[in-house]
């Protein structure tokens, strides 16, 4: 099962290497990892999606917690949370078929953010299934390039279940 971990880390050099290295070294399956600053410039937030059974997730969490740069770790999977991913897709779009593409964009409440001679770039945000859906809806036009941010997530309300170490 996929777990979404919210990890607050110290914004020090080398943190990302330490975390990514830990996954590689111990053979954990990392699905995605998104990093950015928080409201506190000294702290970054990572959202890590890991695939594994309960034992694996427990080990991953404990090993992460052990890293000196990791301040707080929450497994969001066990509680209510909101998650989003963003995608940019560049598709073939001869002027003749642009209307069709725009319809799809509307249905998914996505946006066209750039128009080239024969291509458009579409931006969409949503949960993973929506992102997958829009990607497959656009595939028949010929996808030139895709980039996805990986999942970011936040728990609802105030209560956070901290991972007990």
């Amino acid at each position, binding site marked *: 099962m996929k777990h979404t971990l919210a990890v607050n*880390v*110290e914004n020090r*050099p*080398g943190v990302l*290497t*330490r975390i990514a*290295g830990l996954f590689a*070294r111990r053979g954990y399956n990392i699905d995605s990892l998104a990093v950015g600053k928080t409201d506190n410039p000294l702290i970054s937030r990572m959202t890590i999606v890991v695939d594994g059974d309960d*034992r694996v997730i*427990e*080990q991953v969490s*404990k*090993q992460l*917690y*052990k*890293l*000196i*740069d*990791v*301040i707080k770790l929450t497994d969001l999977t066990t509680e209510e949370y909101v998650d989003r991913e963003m995608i940019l897709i560049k598709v073939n779009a001869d002027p003749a078929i642009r209307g069709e593409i725009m319809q799809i964009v509307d249905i998914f409440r996505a946006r066209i953010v750039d128009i080239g001679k024969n291509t458009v770039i579409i931006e969409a945000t949503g949960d993973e299934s929506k992102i997958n859906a829009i990607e497959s809806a656009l595939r028949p036009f010929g996808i030139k390039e895709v980039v996805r941010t990986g999942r970011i997530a936040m728990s609802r309300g105030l209560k956070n279940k901290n991972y007990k*170490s």
Partner: protein
Amino acid sequence: MTSKNPINTAQPEELTGAQILLKALAAEGVEVIFGYPGGQVLPIYDEIYRTKNITHILTRHEQGAVHAADGYARSTGKPGVCLATSGPGATNLVTGIANAYMDSVPIVAITGQVPSALLGRDSFQEADIVGITTPITKYSYLVKDVKDLARVIHEAFHIATTGRPGPVLIDIPKDITTEKTEFIYPPSLELPGYRLKSTVNLEQVNKAAEAIVKAKQPVLFVGGGVISSGASEEIGKLIELTDIPLTYSLMGKGAFPDNREQCLGMLGMHGTAYANYAAYESDLIFGIGVRFDDRVTGRLDTFGTQAKIIHIDIDPAEIGKNVQVDIPLAGDVKKVLQELNKVLENKGYRPAIEPWKQKIAEWKNKYPLKYETVPGVIKPQFVVEQIYAATNGEAYICTEVGQNQMWAAQYYSSLKPRNFITSGGLGTMGFGLPAAMGVQMAHPEAVVFNIAGDGSIQMNSQEFATIVQNKLPINVAILNNHTLGMVRQWQELFFDKHYSHTSMTGQPDFVKLADAYGAVGLRVEKPEDVRPALEEAISSPKAYILDFIIEADEKVYPMVPAGCSINNMLGR
């Protein structure tokens, strides 16, 4: 965390990075540094030249320096410090850092780095040592601003020595060692992600106590964590309260005296038959400061299958990593055991285990550790026993890796913690000799032996020069089988006697080697000469190399073949 530091003067002076480094080391109580100079650490060495209160030992290889720091740390419980230059100096530390990491030994490794402006350009003698060592350090720093230096050193020592100890690396670019700043030793540490568990979960302790009193066939299984947390007394008390038989991992040797009735010796691949049977048939395995390493558990799906497992470890990530644990107890071994002992004592809990003790006594009787004696032939086990006898078990024993290490672990009775010093987790050949230097530096009056193989001793034999230069009276006992014995043993048992590249022809004459370095060498070929040679070496203030000639076919038994259940032993 200290609230006030005496060395913070009212008017902070401007010091160079190198001066700050040495002041900070002194503030941390460092007495000795093992190191090797080079271009990028010249300003540091210039400062060492002026310093009176810290001894620097020039090893002959950086690997020697880091293992010496390791031996110093293992034998004292204080952090060991080593220093190397950038690039090749730093990379020569890698094996020793990994070795300390695997055995949770507190080391602070300081490396020089090319000047900040040259970083990242493949400059002369540049190596990304922080990157290289990230997986094998507890933490590592690249100091980018001289203002951070004092704080970094303070943090490094704190991290290396607290919680689960381990090596910390500090990489210092050359310009940082010459730039000046005010020296302010930070009064407190800010490490929000570094949590040290100080409370003991009493509910879990009670559960453990209840499991213990109900157990019919319990065993204690202790590891290096008992030694590093200084919990030997608590283990003694636990045994007094419960009388439960005890076995240990290689790293746990010395946590409880080998000569006590409840001690079953080592568990696992080369453990005693009775320890292995006891663990295999046990209904309660109580792991204390151990990590259930594969050398110990053998085939995991058959290990302790009938047993409840209680596990104390300071590192929560160790609990449940290899074996499923029924009663986890995360915390410092000493503190947890104190609480547990209180509960056992107050409630008068004592398990009823007479039949179990009887069963173990029978195993002990039937399958003792044993070796054959052949007239005129020196048996390595006999040499180890004689080292014990000649030193009353009071020597510090270091070992290399291979058969020599296992014979030492089996036949030398350790009576107190911190005097059996061996590379457990990494199994590093070449560890013993430099580690012995660290031990002897820390304990100038003690008798120190390095029990070695003829292969291992050649991995860091250049350190004989360091030993002689510093007049360290270290005794090296080479169990010389003219072969890479442990590998040969595997080849004989599991590879149809295909002795591929394990024969050590072209060895030096170790007696002449000793002579060349200014030590004393003795070749010993007859059993009756073993003891006198040992006595001579022990009583002499000189370093000795004793070359005990043994047979290539002598094996370490019992042996659990890799991947087998621990009740499945050859040669028991």
